[in-house]
Each structure stands twice: as structure tokens, then as C-alpha cells.
């Protein structure tokens, strides 16, 4: 019985270590590294909207994997429900990664010639975070949607 309980407790300690250590290491790295175009999420959103309100909307769909094993290549697709006529269309799709050093990924300026409001790409994510799409409609309103992506290996190392 003693041997069994010893093994059990040893196993528990080993499990804590293996889970705990990499997290601490990655948190330290995230603090150290600052990119040349560093921008925080709030500043980036303010730069896009100019202070106008952003409404979360079911018309905007961000599709990205819930768990990404490799943060260096995370496929992201953004679609917006819109007729894409010259009177009512999606002006711009802004893709942001909420916790990257520079949260801005891509600003896509569409025209009615696109037929559908769609943008697909692959992004680098430095850790677990939200991929956010902020969409500017032709009437000047802003809609948004997001998808949380759990990253097991960061993509900025």
C-alpha cells in the first residue's frame, strides 16, 4: 500500500510540473518580446472605428479552429452576410489577433465587385487568444465577431 500511494503522489507532482512549467516560460517570453509595430487591442480598435460603437453581430462569422496545435499557421475565414450591391455592401473587414504584440493582422477593403463578403488567410498567433473581425458596412456602422483559439505551441518564436 505504501508503495502504491508513493507512486500516486509522485505521479501527481510530475503532472503538475509538466503542465506548470511551459506556461510560466511562455508567459515570460510574451512579456520580453515586443515587435516593431506594437499596438494594443484597444488602440487598434479605436484607430479602425474612430470611436464609433461596434456591435457584435451574427451576420459576421469568423471561422478558425478552436484548438490550434501550431500557432504559426492558423487558418482564419471571415464571411459577412451582405447583398454586396452598390448601395449596401461591406466596406472593410479588419482581422485582429487580440493578444499578439501587434494585434492588427489584415485590413481588407472590399467593393461590390466582390459579389460576396469573404476573406480567408492564415495567421500567426503568439498564444491562446481571440481572433476578432471588425466589419465596416457601407452605411458607416461597425459589426464584429470573434472566435477563441487555444494555441498549444506559439507561432512567434
Amino acid at each position, binding site marked *: 500500500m505504501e508503495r502504491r500511494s508513493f507512486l500516486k503522489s509522485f505521479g501527481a507532482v510530475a503532472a503538475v510540473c509538466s503542465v506548470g512549467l511551459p506556461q510560466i516560460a511562455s508567459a515570460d517570453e510574451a512579456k520580453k518580446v515586443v*515587435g516593431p509595430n506594437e499596438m494594443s487591442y484597444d488602440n487598434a480598435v479605436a484607430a479602425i472605428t474612430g470611436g464609433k460603437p461596434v456591435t457584435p453581430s451574427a451576420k459576421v462569422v469568423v471561422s478558425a479552429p478552436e484548438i490550434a496545435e501550431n500557432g504559426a499557421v492558423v487558418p482564419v475565414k471571415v464571411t459577412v452576410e451582405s447583398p454586396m450591391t452598390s448601395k449596401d455592401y461591406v466596406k472593410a473587414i479588419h482581422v485582429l489577433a487580440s493578444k499578439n504584440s501587434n494585434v492588427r493582422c489584415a485590413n481588407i477593403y472590399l467593393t461590390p*465587385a466582390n459579389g460576396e463578403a469573404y476573406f480567408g488567410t492564415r495567421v500567426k498567433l503568439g498564444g491562446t487568444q481571440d481572433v476578432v473581425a471588425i466589419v465596416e458596412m457601407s452605411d458607416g456602422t461597425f459589426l464584429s465577431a470573434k472566435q477563441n483559439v487555444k494555441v498549444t505551441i506559439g507561432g512567434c518564436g
Partner: protein
Amino acid sequence: MKTLIKIKPKEYKVGEVVKIDFMAMHPMETGMRKNKDTGEIIPAQYINEVNFMFNDQLITKMVIWESLSVNPLFSISFKVPGEGTLKVIAKDNKGQSVETTQQITPKG
């Protein structure tokens, strides 16, 4: 910079909405990575602008940052208005620029 344009599906008609995939072979350096041998920071080099034109008319303009993956993919929709030339111009922050063209020939 090597590039590739793919139209999906391969056969399409006038008025149909197709997907245009544009891929560029580019390192997309963030400026945050260190050279493992010398310890020096590798300077940022990333595509910062991509423009899609059809018969010299701008369809989609993209402003890009370093957060996109190595050899990035840019995929958009396009409603085929008729025959013509699709031109994609990609530029990076170091002044490199590449122009790729693809003939659009709808069937029927």
C-alpha cells in the same frame, strides 16, 4: 517573390461568384525573432499591401501586417463580370514588389 493565383472552381460562368486564392512565397519576418547563432534580431520583412485589379479596376485593397503566416494566403470572392485580366500586385515593407496576372475566361 514567387506567387500563385488559383481560381475555384476551375470552370465558371459570367455572374458566378468564384474564390480567388493568391499565395506569395514570403518569409513574413516579424522583427521579433533572433538569429540563433549570432543572437541578433532578424529585421522585420512582411508583405504590407496587396491589390486585386480586374481590367485595371481595383476590386479589393488589402493592408497587411506581420501577423500573417509565412508564405501567406489571401483569399477573396469575386463575381465574374465577363472576360478580362486579373492582376494582383503585392508589395513588402522593404520595397519589393511583384505583379501576377491571370486571364479570366468564363464558359457560357
